[in-house]
């Protein structure tokens, strides 16, 4: 049984939002049905993520989702699991400029961190139509442009593969008593449920901000924090709130907030164009001013999710800061040459600023203080399969 599922008698009375440190440690051998209520792994100050109406999150559902997430049998080559582009130590990103799918297929986008992904009202870098994790999960599994897990046309074989596994033979009926077989519905619901538990709110910044542990942040990080929240740099205009993003939906917000920005990363030929295959929101709307607009990423755990931007084209946080200081990136030559600052669709809040090397170091230290080591090592989020199991024996991981 996963640590997430450790539930004590007081949980029966105390609702599902107990802070982490108030969870009773004892386990309950014979679990009453009421204990199937799921307890979010999060502090009391944060509202839980919204959950689609047709889903009841239970420990069994989350556990099934975790097994699926790490199972390379969900791919055409038997080597590509969700985790193959979303590794826990990297806050569920992959350290590469863009993802790599089945048969070594090079992807189009930087694999985004899944930190707090359940609070994102839209998923992926720019697709406004992916509004649930369940719907989005279909793309890596069945998409062909690019192939990620390569299962297009393979679903019956996939369902049979999963049904033959002894764990799944029990886990699907436990999670879905009314619909006990692996199918598109059950697989995507379980994957979504697990991903909603990937909640990271215990960084040094959180300990200093929410728990009064001022020493949790270094002096450099605190100087960087002052810069981050100052109007000279304007970082907080888009990277705001609990997620450090202007995209947010919680169980207590009245409606989702979506925001996409062109940060002046490209301006090919002075036309405002971005490289083909990475046009941002424009790809979905065809509206000229949507060129290069991408969803604001959360900055939580950002120090472990390099390289940066939708195409992984900036290697380090220092370079990202210099990009914003310049108010856009100038590429002097080559097929992508252009002055990003002059991109006609650049967001009006990307204005540029002057910053010293020492201030860049401080700001970087602040961004590093958003790294939640507990999240990167929490066994509740780790590979549940034993080493050498068919689920992971052939699995390719970004860090090996």
């Amino acid at each position, binding site marked *: 049984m996963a640590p997430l599922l450790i539930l004590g008698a007081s949980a029966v009375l105390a609702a599902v939002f107990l802070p982490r440190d108030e969870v009773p440690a004892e386990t309950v051998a014979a679990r009453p049905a009421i204990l199937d209520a799921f307890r979010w792994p999060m502090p009391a100050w944060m509202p839980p993520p919204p959950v689609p109406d047709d889903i009841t999150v239970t420990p069994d559902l989350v556990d099934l989702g975790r097994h699926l997430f790490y199972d390379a049998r969900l791919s055409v080559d038997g080597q590509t699991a969700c985790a193959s582009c979303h590794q826990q130590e990297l806050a569920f990103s992959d350290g590469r400029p863009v993802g790599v799918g089945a048969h070594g297929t090079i992807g189009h986008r930087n694999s985004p961190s899944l930190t707090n992904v359940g609070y994102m009202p839209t998923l992926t870098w720019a697709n406004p139509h992916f509004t649930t994790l369940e719907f989005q999960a279909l793309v890596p599994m069945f998409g062909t442009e690019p192939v990620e897990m390569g299962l297009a046309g393979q679903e019956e074989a996939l369902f049979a593969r999963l049904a033959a596994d002894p764990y799944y033979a029990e886990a699907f009926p436990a999670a879905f008593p009314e619909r006990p077989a692996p199918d598109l519905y059950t697989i995507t619901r379980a994957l979504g449920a697990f991903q909603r538990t990937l909640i990271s709110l215990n960084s040094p910044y959180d300990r200093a901000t929410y728990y009064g542990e001022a020493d949790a942040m270094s002096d450099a990080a605190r100087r960087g924090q002052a810069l981050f929240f100052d109007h000279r740099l304007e970082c907080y205009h888009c990277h705001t709130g609990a997620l450090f993003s202007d995209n*947010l939906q919680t169980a207590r917000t009245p409606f989702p907030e979506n925001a996409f920005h062109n940060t002046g990363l490209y301006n090919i030929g002075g036309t405002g164009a971005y490289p083909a295959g990475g046009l941002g929101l424009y790809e979905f709307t065809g509206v000229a001013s949507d060129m290069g607009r991408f969803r604001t990423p959360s900055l939580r755990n950002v120090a472990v999710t390099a390289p940066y931007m939708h195409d992984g084209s900036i290697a380090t946080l220092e370079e990202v800061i210099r990009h914003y200081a310049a108010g856009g990136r100038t590429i002097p030559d080559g097929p992508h040459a252009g002055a990003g600052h002059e991109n006609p669709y650049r967001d*009006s809040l990307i204005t540029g600023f002057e910053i010293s090397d020492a201030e860049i170091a401080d700001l970087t230290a602040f961004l590093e203080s958003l790294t939640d080591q507990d999240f990167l090592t929490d066994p509740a989020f780790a590979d549940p399969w034993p080493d050498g199991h068919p689920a992971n024996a052939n699995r390719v991981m970004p860090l090996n």
Partner: protein
Amino acid sequence: MKRFLLAATAALVAGPALADMTVEIPFTAEIAGAPFACTESYAGLGSAETEVQFLDFRLFVSSANLIAADGTRVPVALDQDGAWQIENIALLDFEDGTGSCANGTPQVNTTLRGTVPEGDYRGLEFEVGVPFDWNHGDPTTAPAPLNLTAMFWNWRGGYKFVKIEFSPTMPSGMSMAAEGHSEDATHGQGPRGWMLHLGSTQCAAPEATTPPSEACANPNRIAVALPDFMPGESTVVIDPAVVVAGADLTQNTPETSPGCMSFNNDPDCNTVLPRLGLAFNAFPAEEQMLVSMR
């Protein structure tokens, strides 16, 4: 303690002698008298008579009182709707996420809804802004509408009381950047947007994430009095055109926030904050010109 609670309960049950009546106070957004829409362009704004589109149009109002026949101020008890109104604070949201309001929300809110005791009222007073007691709480844990990131400002500095954002457009439809209208040598481009963000400034606190213990040096809440307001007949009008009439919306002082974001280092606010009824550095407050009625 128990006795106190019982007494309090009895008082609540007894209730006021007069019944309450519902009130709905309508607001409308206009640009130099023309109805506001995210899909429209508006010519002649600011000292350079710039044509603009809008990126955003939202503001907080609070502490609304209707004025009774005997002159007493009667607080409007706002419906606690879990979305737009909390305590005596409401978010008015005129943008609908269409057109140039690209990062907005489809949801709009253009009225205050609540109750007052039965009676005859003439006159309305309220503040534009979030009261101090709510302004510097933790925005990440606040109830709606104080949990909408679009109105967050710099952590415990509080909220954007007013968020009205212009995007200058050239008559040709070309962007300002392409036309080269800029004196900003450092970055080579004029402003893409001219943002009016009103909020409290110079709020002394040890960190950005800790609240100030005393009132900010510049609270920047706008006091509005509309003595002729008639409930059921009048409409409150929010129109920023006169407020920014003295500002050149095609220019931004280098190394300052784009537009006027209330900060004391920003000369782009010199003509703007006074017309919101607020002193700004050496510039004295004038009558507020953002809010009127008809």
